[in-house]
């Protein structure tokens, strides 16, 4: 019962947030709606029994990525809807009617293909008994440090490389 309510609230947040990220004309508002979508995905993780992932999603995305995006928006001219300065066709930064038509046609094409695959799969799917909810933190920790230790270490090297690379790329240069 409770998980159904949480599922409906979360799916409303996900669908509404994703729609508004597509349609919003203001870049700052799109970023805030992305935050709503990420909260909704965290709620969906909770209904799926993934407590550690929900917490990681909230900490990393709401605390890290969205704040970083907001900094990026504010450092690069705010929410001005500028056209391109070079080139012949001037298209505003947040998209014109033409680009939205192109996007609509292509997602219609992809939607028919993907929904066909999902429908074919759902016809042959039988719902079995779901496992009980239980905490996954211990199992995730055990699995990360035994079976997936190589990927764990490589991801730490990846994060170090991303840190140094981002600092190198964005440093101010004299010229």
């Amino acid at each position, binding site marked *: 019962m409770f998980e159904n309510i949480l599922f409906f609230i979360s*799916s409303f947040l*996900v669908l509404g947030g*994703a*729609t508004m*990220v597509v349609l919003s004309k203001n*870049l700052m508002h*799109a970023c805030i709606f*992305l935050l709503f*979508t*990420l909260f909704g*995905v965290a709620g*969906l*993780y909770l209904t*799926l*029994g993934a407590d*550690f*992932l929900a917490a*990681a999603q909230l900490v*990393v995305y709401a605390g*890290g990525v969205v704040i*970083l995006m907001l*900094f*990026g928006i504010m*450092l*690069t*001219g705010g929410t001005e809807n*500028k056209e*391109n*300065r*070079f*080139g012949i066709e001037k*298209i*505003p*930064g947040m*998209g014109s009617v033409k*680009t939205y038509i192109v996007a*609509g046609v*292509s*997602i219609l094409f992809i939607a028919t293909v993907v929904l066909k695959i*999902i429908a074919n*799969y*759902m016809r042959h*799917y039988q*719902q079995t008994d*779901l496992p009980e909810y239980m905490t*996954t933190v211990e*199992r*995730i920790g055990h*699995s*990360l440090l035994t079976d997936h230790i190589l*990927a764990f270490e490589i*991801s730490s090297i*990846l*994060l170090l*490389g*991303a*840190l140094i690379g*981002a600092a190198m790329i*964005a440093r*101010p240069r004299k010229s």
Partner: protein
Amino acid sequence: MVTLGSYLFLSFALFVAGLAVIIARKNIIAMLLGIELMLNAAALNFVAYTRFVNSNIDGHIMALFIIVIAAAEAAVGLAIVIRFFQLRESIHIDDAAQLQN
């Protein structure tokens, strides 16, 4: 009744929204928002299959690595955007049409 299909449909809607953002927008930061949406759709699929089909923990591990890689990608992508803004004073994707000078 909440089944696997509802999660698959939500993930599909997220992916389509991200794709529409990437195609329709011409602002580089807005396109990065679309990439975040698509990565979340993939991670949601992994976790849904973990609960409904097999109950081992590998899908959770995969979603965790997707979150890590999304964070790294956002940091490096925004650094590139800021550098591009220093050079060209623009964050329009069509202004990035030259390899040198």
